[in-house]
């Protein structure tokens, strides 16, 4: 039976101010005056006009001693060394791959930064260069770590660990990078039956836990067997929960995703994306997170 639901649009509700945690944040919009004190150094996101320091992006003001900068809330991913990212290969070039990571410039994955089959300490030969497309093609998804950041802001990645590499079957969700909370680990095996990689660049990868990387060489041969229906349901539910959390601008980390999953269990998977159900689930999640802290 086809299920078609149509509705009239409802105006966006203004979310009331939630309890401030850790002090008030000074939020500014482009053009707002931050301060008229001339003793400050201007950082990113600000400019000086008529002896006033004015914000050029919408975000929160951060002050470190004499340096004032504005960190934008909605921005492209700015790489930092040690971040975990999930990226998609866009180009195969000589001795490197170009990876799309939702940043201002495509990230770079050098051939010398990947694990090749046959051990790590092999010198990269000309045959390796010609066989690059056999390892990673255009469109493939990889999980990697940021090795370094070039001066123009481009990020250099590496997959020199068995937990990184080509990703197999699963679902990718794209959210804003500022919604992913910085944590100790970004690889989570959730108790509900699926695993999730929370990329710092806003790409979230949900995959079945049974896809163990027990092959060598960082998993370059993905598992192509059909995923059972029970795991598919968990993955679809998680995907909808993450989309709901992102739409309501809640920070994404393993606990919030898990609470949202549990709150969504009474509803059908396809109903989670309905606006009223989404609000109800996220409200419950927000409440549980506040109880956890308080």
């Amino acid at each position, binding site marked *: *039976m*086809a*299920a*078609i*639901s*149509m*509705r*009239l*649009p*409802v*105006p*966006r509700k203004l979310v009331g101010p939630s309890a401030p945690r850790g002090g008030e944040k000074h939020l500014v919009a482009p053009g707002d005056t931050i301060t008229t004190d001339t003793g400050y150094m201007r950082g990113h996101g600000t400019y000086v006009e008529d002896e006033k320091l004015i914000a050029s992006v919408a975000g929160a003001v951060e002050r470190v001693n004499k340096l004032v900068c504005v960190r934008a809330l909605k921005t492209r991913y700015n790489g930092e060394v040690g971040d975990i990212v999930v990226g*998609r290969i*866009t180009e195969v070039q000589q001795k490197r791959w170009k990876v799309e990571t939702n940043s201002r410039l495509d990230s770079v994955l050098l051939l010398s930064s990947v694990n090749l089959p046959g051990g790590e300490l092999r010198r990269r030969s000309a045959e390796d260069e010609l066989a690059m497309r056999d390892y990673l*093609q*255009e*469109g*493939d*998804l990889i999980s990697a770590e940021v090795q370094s950041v070039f001066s123009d802001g481009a990020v250099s990645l590496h997959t020199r660990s068995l937990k990184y590499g080509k*990703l*197999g*079957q*699963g*679902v*990718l969700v794209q959210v804003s990078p500022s919604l992913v909370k910085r944590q100790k680990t970004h690889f989570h095996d959730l108790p509900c039956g699926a695993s999730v990689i929370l990329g710092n660049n806003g790409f979230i990868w949900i995959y079945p836990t049974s896809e163990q990387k027990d092959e060598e060489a960082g998993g370059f041969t*993905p598992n*192509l067997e*059909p*995923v059972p*229906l029970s795991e*598919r*349901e968990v993955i*679809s*539910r998680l*995907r*909808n929960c993450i989309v709901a959390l992102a739409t309501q601008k809640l920070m994404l980390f393993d606990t919030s995703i898990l609470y949202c999953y549990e709150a969504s269990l009474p509803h*059908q*998977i*396809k109903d*989670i*994306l*309905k*606006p009223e159900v989404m609000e109800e689930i996220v409200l419950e999640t927000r409440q549980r997170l506040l109880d956890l802290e308080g």
Partner: protein
Amino acid sequence: MASVVLSEAEKLYIVHGVQEDLRVDGRGCEDYRCAEVETDVVSNTSGSARVKLGHTDILVGVKAEMGTPKLEKPDEGYLEFFVDCSANATPEFEGRGGEELGTEIANTLYRVFSSESSVDLKSLCINPREHCWVIYVDVLLLECGGNLFDAISIAVKAALFNTRIPKVHILEDEEGSKEIELSDDPYDCIRLNVDNVPCIVTLSKIGYRHVVDATLQEEACSLASLLISVTSKGALTSMKKIGKGSLDPESIFEMMETGQRVGKSLHIALQKILDEEERLGTSRQKVGFLG
């Protein structure tokens, strides 16, 4: 059409999911995404509608203008379609990139509305052979999120339902010269009967099954799609196959049956929301684009 690049493993996951009737977002093969419909959003048109189907955003404006009837149909008015793929939707549409897709969609709309019973064109005639109403339907693509044709046809039907054409009277002088007089009352207008206006249902073949309302990712996995236009009574007015893959005749029959079934439900849901909007009248809070 806007497209996403997917890895082979992702495509495989989607194809297997469709086989088991559980798509990536939890829908079944015959379920539509949640749609938002609003009419009367553009003030200087005779009728307008905006439809949001997931990430697909369509705006349709209808303007009724006076023109001369076509030579072969002197006592009928006619419809003209124009589709603009704005660069807002996707960077591929920048400059003249969206023209090809725009003409393809416009030609499909002409075909869908080519059946005589879709819109009562005789009611658009003012003076046979001299004056008639020409309905210009302009479609604007604001965002491309998969399943363009369905969303466009829903928006066109809603906009035509919302269209108000002013009533005109012909005054004849003794010399025989005719004058057209517009009535003074702005609410004195004729409405179009949209009971027989068809809606397009796109069925994309993924693996061995077909899905309705494909997202961009699902469209990347499907090699062939069937576009059928269905009226509210379940009658098919046109059919078109798109995509570079091939379709088995048996699967075409199955897809046609599914399309008719889904099309009827689509019309019922759309009519319900249009009637509800009509009932609310001026008490409805207009959301428009700044809501």
